[in-house]
């Protein structure tokens, strides 16, 4: 567990440093994720302690959003004042974004698979 924490904090630390040094709009943790992914690619495998502990961490990912979510309490008056316009806007935007992404990906993947199959068929 300690090794896992050290690796994760180390990559976040490095990510924060790069983000600050290059004034990037990308936060340190996202850069840390990218760097850890690149490291795993070069060493062609997941160290056993990460493989064991990370899935346990992911199972409780939701907990980590609770403190920020309670922050809604600071904006209750605004949410009340603009309740309907804001709610409808969030809903319309959410449906558009989620369905556009899922729909286009579904179509693109189906086309992609068909092409691969044709290529394989051509060889045979």
């Amino acid at each position, binding site marked *: 567990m300690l090794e896992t924490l050290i690796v994760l904090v180390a990559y976040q630390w490095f990510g924060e440093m790069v983000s600050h040094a290059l004034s990037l709009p990308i936060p340190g943790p996202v850069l840390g994720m990218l760097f850890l992914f690149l490291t795993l690619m070069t060493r062609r495998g997941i160290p056993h302690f990460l493989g064991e502990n990370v899935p346990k961490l992911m199972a409780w990912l939701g907990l980590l959003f609770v403190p920020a979510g309670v922050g809604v309490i600071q904006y209750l008056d605004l949410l009340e004042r603009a309740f309907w316009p804001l709610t409808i806007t969030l809903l319309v*935007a959410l449906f558009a974004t989620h369905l556009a992404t899922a729909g286009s990906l579904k179509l693109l993947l189906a086309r992609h698979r068909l092409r691969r199959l044709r290529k394989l068929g051509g060889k045979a």
Partner: protein
Amino acid sequence: MSTWQFMLQSPLTWLFVTLLTFRGMVTLNRRCKGHPLANPIILSNGLIIALLLGTGTSYTTYFAGAQYVHFLLGPATVALAVPLYAQLPRLQKALGPLLIALLIGGTVGIISGIGSGMLFGLDRELLLTLAPRSVTTPIAMGIAEHIGGVPQLASVLVILTGMLACVLTIPLLQRWKWDSDIVLGFSSGIAGHGIGTARAFQISAGAGAFAGLAMGLNGVLTAVLVPLLLWLTRL
């Protein structure tokens, strides 16, 4: 100061409340057979907000304890690289479609927020705050600040969007059977960032991995696209 009042001010109380409430809501969610309306994040938030209002406790006092949980978001985001790497063969196979879907989803994400906000008569500051609402909180706050929105409010809209995705659009995709790991996961990461990702991990490790990937990529894309689109439309 009575002992009770002293404990209400103690950070430890609110750390304990956060852990215990979430654990309890996970049990409730399992009892409801994982029903999307029994979302543990939403239920915990509702209960804790009621508790804070009931006891007259400020968010600052609450956060003094809850920050220890909040702080782990950073390392957890880094950890998303591990499940993603486990999906490397599938990622390589689908890379083209994923990148095109990212461009489509990221662009629709920004335009739909600003567009429907305009339609429903929200003011300019709120519109600019809505633009980055689909991306992970730190990126959304950074973008909002950069373009003249309200960073704190941006984080609230981000969280509400993520919760709505868990309750509405993810169950809809499941009902339509658009629920392959790649389609469900990736789109949930684009539309519902970290909260959508947390939900995707409950569905499957593969869906979670693609959600985490989408969250990261969409964060980067939105950080570039929002200022560009605003400049093009001179909004």
